[in-house]
């Protein structure tokens, strides 16, 4: 059993497990932090961005002014943003049998894996994961295609050139794998390969392995996976949460008794408490609005935004913000809000019971009905005429490199009345803001990451007791910025097996048993011996391993002595006691039968019929035993 690690990003994993001759890919996360190296894609023409100077090395030997631009003291690539793909060289992607998706954030690389690679397998995901994942992909494609950029920069990627560039571009890794965004056609084709599964559904793969998704509590339809045969069990833990937010709570007990537990997707903000961050978020928002400023919240179109809206629903009445407009701008804003209301089965108990009334599970339905929350596909169209300030805008993309958020950065960045509040933990906010500097706007960093922290995970591992833990190497040491915090790492006995991009780990398994089904026709015969039972399997020809009793000798002799003479006209049997048994001498036939505890020896010279008769007799007797 082997594990191939195709991604080094701990929360956007992509691993391949080879288990009992099946090849299973666990998630295919797309590392989008690479887009921070690119210039933002403005929705409307930006004089500032278009006038940036090109980059030429100090000695003038390298001139990349078409590809690289200098902006606020940093160098950015001027082309369509590119993503860092999972490793494709480690393993032939066409040999992958199935892909298991744990949540919609961890499937964004799917089209790169399933399209144009010869992949012929099946992808398994829950319905919310598929539907919301589709929305996020659609949004990404839309963001890119809305602002077409013909230019594609390639020269800077050459190793000899890259090492001469200024940081952080110089230190960017795996640049050769960076790719532009896929098309909608690829998305549709990739998602057509998805087969829907429900929590605790047992899916048989080729009769060899069974996979089961379990609720992981992180997002709508998010799951951990159990991959097991009758004797081996691998648990794959991806983004999981023990906090009470909107999704169904995490199923912990089913992870018990794992031989190996692959642990990924822990919180990226181990020191930030989500509840505290939510409080900061609300108070900063209120403060800015009261002072007459606008609030910009760069966020994904699904996930934490549901919790933010729910929190605001309760907050705005008390904070007297009832008249402030809230806008949610995304090509998939409407779909995301609508979809969130129809997945009752995947929600926490409280929300589930609302549906029985019947009421929509999320309160944003009421916010929309009362016109407090409005959603628009983009800043163009209705929004531009209906938009009032001061307001709160939720929009993407959280990297600030593309999407409608770019426009608001240009629009509001110059005023210190406005505030940008970062809630998504995926991007460093300083890097995200870099191409907009100098900024007058206030910046508040309230990353909300509900995934497991180190304290929760060590408690969980104590509970479920896996024999071995495999995890990204980042989890085996404290974060580089907080090297003294030994509580921000995994300490286990035996120590976890760390992996990094391109690792191939041999998982410690000793397979000893396999499950087979005995047909009732085989007809095993039960034999009882003092304390254990032994079954003999008869096959053609009957070869039987027989296990004798102590009493065998006596019994055996008796049978011979009783049954032989009558059947074969044997007149004279001489019985001789030996140390280990008996010797029967059939004198007339000149045949010896030596009976001992662990063997019977028939010495019979020239009498084949007698020999076979004796043989059958012995066998019959042994079988009777």
């Amino acid at each position, binding site marked *: 059993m082997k594990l191939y690690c195709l991604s080094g990003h701990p929360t956007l994993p992509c691993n391949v497990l080879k288990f009992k001759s099946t090849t299973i890919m666990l998630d295919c996360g797309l590392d989008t932090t690479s887009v921070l190296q690119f210039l933002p894609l403005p929705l409307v023409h930006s004089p500032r961005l278009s006038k940036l100077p090109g980059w030429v090395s100090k000695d003038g030997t390298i001139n990349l002014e078409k590809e690289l631009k200098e902006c606020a003291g940093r160098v950015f690539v001027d082309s369509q943003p590119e993503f860092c793909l999972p490793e494709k060289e480690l393993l032939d992607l066409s040999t992958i049998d199935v892909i298991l998706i744990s949540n919609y954030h961890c499937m964004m690389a799917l089209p790169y894996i399933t399209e144009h690679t010869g992949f012929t397998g099946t992808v398994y995901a829950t319905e919310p994961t598929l539907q919301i994942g589709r929305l996020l992909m659609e949004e990404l494609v839309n963001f890119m295609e809305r602002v077409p950029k013909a230019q594609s920069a390639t020269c800077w990627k050459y190793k000899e050139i890259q090492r001469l560039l200024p940081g952080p571009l110089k230190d960017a890794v795996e640049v050769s794998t960076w790719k532009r965004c896929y098309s909608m056609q690829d998305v549709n084709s990739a998602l057509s390969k998805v087969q829907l599964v429900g*929590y605790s559904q047992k899916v048989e793969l080729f009769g060899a392995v069974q996979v089961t998704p379990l609720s992981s509590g992180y997002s709508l339809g998010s799951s951990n996976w159990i991959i097991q045969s009758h004797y081996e069990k691998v648990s794959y833990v991806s983004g999981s949460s023990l906090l009470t937010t909107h999704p169904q709570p995490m199923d912990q007990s089913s992870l018990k008794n794992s031989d190996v537990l692959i642990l990924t997707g822990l919180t990226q903000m181990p020191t930030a408490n989500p509840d505290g961050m939510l409080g900061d978020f609300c108070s900063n928002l209120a403060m800015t609005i009261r002072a007459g400023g606008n609030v910009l919240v760069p966020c994904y179109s699904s996930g934490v935004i549901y919790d933010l809206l729910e929190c605001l629903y309760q907050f705005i009445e008390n904070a007297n913000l009832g008249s402030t407009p809230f806008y949610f701008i995304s090509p998939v804003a409407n779909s995301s809000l609508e979809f969130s209301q129809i*997945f009752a089965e995947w929600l926490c108990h409280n929300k589930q019971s609302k549906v029985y009334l019947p009421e929509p599970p999320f309160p944003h339905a009421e916010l929309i009905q009362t016109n407090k929350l409005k959603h628009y596909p983009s800043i163009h169209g209705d929004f531009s005429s209906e938009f009032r300030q001061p307001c709160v805008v939720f929009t993407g993309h959280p990297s600030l490199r593309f999407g409608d958020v770019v426009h608001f950065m240009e629009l509001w960045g110059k005023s210190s009345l406005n505030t940008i509040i970062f809630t998504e933990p995926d991007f460093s906010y300083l890097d995200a803001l870099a191409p907009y500097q100098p900024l007058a706007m206030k910046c508040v960093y309230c990353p909300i990451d509900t995934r497991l922290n180190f304290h929760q995970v060590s408690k969980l591992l104590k509970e479920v007791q896996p024999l071995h833990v495999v995890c990204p190497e980042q989890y085996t040491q404290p974060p580089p910025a907080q090297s003294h915090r030994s509580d921000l790492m995994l300490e286990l006995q035996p120590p976890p097996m760390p992996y990094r991009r391109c690792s191939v780990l041999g998982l410690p398994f000793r397979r000893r048993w396999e499950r087979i*089904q*005995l047909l009732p026709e085989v007809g095993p015969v039960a034999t009882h011996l003092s304390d254990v039972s032994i079954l*003999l*399997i008869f096959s053609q020809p009957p070869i039987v391993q027989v296990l004798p009793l102590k009493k065998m000798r006596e019994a055996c002799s008796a049978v011979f002595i009783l049954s032989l003479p009558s059947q074969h006209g044997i007149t004279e049997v001489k019985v001789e006691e030996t140390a280990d048994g008996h010797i029967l001498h059939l004198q007339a036939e000149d045949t010896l039968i030596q009976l001992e505890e662990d*063997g019977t*020896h028939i010495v019979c010279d020239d009498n084949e019929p007698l020999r076979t008769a004796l043989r059958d007799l012995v066998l019959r007797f042994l079988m009777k035993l």
Partner: protein
Amino acid sequence: MPEIKVTPLGAGQDVGRSCILVSIGGKNIMLDCGMHMGFNDDRRFPDFSYITQQGRLTEFLDCVIISHFHLDHCGALPYMSEMVGYDGPIYMTHPTKAICPILLEDFRKITVDKKGETNFFTSQMIKDCMKKVVPLNLHQTVQVDDELEIKAYYAGHVLGAAMVQIKVGSESVVYTGDYNMTPDRHLGAAWIDKCRPDILISESTYATTIRDSKRCRERDFLKKVHETVERGGKVLIPVFALGRAQELCILLETFWERMNMKAPIYFSTGLTEKANHYYKLFITWTNQKIRKTFVQRNMFEFKHIKAFDRSYADNPGPMVVFATPGMLHAGQSLQIFKKWAGNEKNMIIMPGYCVQGTIGHKILNGQKKLEMENRQTLEVKLQVEYMSFSAHADAKGIMQLIRMAEPRNMLLVHGEAKKMEFLKDKIEQEFTINCFMPANGETTTVITNPSVPVDISLNLLKREMALGGPLPDPKKPRTMHGTLIMKDNSLRLVSPEQALKELGLNEHQLRFTCRVQYRKTEFTIFIVFSSSYLVKAWLVLKGYTIQHLPDGTVMVESIVIKVSSSAEEPNTKVLLLSWSYQDEDLGSFLSTLLKKGLPSGLSSM
């Protein structure tokens, strides 16, 4: 031999009060717990005294499963759990869990408040009963206990309807509840995988019907409604609040839109709006098309269909009214029917099945004079139309499901005996499987032949694999030798050596020895002969290994051939041939060979 027992307490050769008991692998399961629309006395509910004469049912039942929210499948649930007494788990899907209590409360109100019956379950009992419900998700494997597992499949029929697979070890039963094999305007078609249950328990409402295409029926329906409205008549469509109602509403809504019709459409019960809301929230349970487009246009937001008020019934002019309940046995549909029955311009369309004893059943059978309460008679002048819109599988659909699931036995419930008989013959003929149709209280026993799960040692498996070459040939069975050990309730198949070792026992060897005496001359001939090309080649060809040991012994496989001189007769050589039972075939062949010389047919062996 292990067996599965099935006993219907209701719905055995009948439609109504579905309740089927299944005993499988030592577990007892109750499938559905419904009421009968045709009775107002004790026969309304299943006869639970069959399970036990006194006391509660909890210790006799491992779980109760409700297939969908129709009252003939869940109407007796509060009676069973709260009045007879059952505290174990009750499984149903989320939509069923949401809608079931509302219909039960409706049923209770009609029975207690309108008809004035006492000794009926109360609102509180419905609530207490629903607390025992565990929601089921589609395809989720729910472990009721260590051995019993259940799994729900999509059944179409109504929102949240499910088929269930019940499994203990390798034995299993599938119960369909009510299902529909063709997608309709708001629901998808039932689906199940090839799970090969020991018994498939199927409804058979439309056992003998093969319905024409849905499209024809819809066109027919719209034409009739249109004609009646055009000539100024009123159309009454008795329905149940959830299910067919929504489908027909979608149908009329789109028709009104397209034809720009003006006549009002009403829906009689306050439940409608709520009902439509359930459809909106459980949109994942509807068909593909509605699910795909719900963000742009929610099919359950109707523009032309408005709430009905009692006073509207006397309004002049045409109108279409959907009224509950669907079988005209009580409530608003019956009241409106009484008002409109006398006018031949009007029309009543019965879109579903009517149970015997209901007014719906009577008028469908052409009865023109109805006896009402207070000895009054009602003349039926309005046109009566029957249009099968209820979403049950027809004969074709039932056969299709059998093909899908490949059951070993078939059991029919929820249908009329005569029609069942016909379908039973058809199934037995086409699939050559047994088909049963027990009456209420009658037990069907099916002997099962479960395979025995055994753990095989990987060493043994690998050794066997190695013998058969690199790839196992799936087309060829092969015998393998091993010892099965039954210990601590587990079965393990290991190599004989390992078993002996584990049990601390010795192998019992069976050996044979033959002595053949030769005179010297004969012996020389033998030596020449045995080393002859022919014999050796034959042995080698057959894949036997031949070894020559330094002391002059020859070993063919484990057969020892040894030459010694006889002490008494110096001129004689004695050839000892000794083999164990494992090499019996070769040993006995060689001994014959050595004694009698080469059989004439050897070269062909």
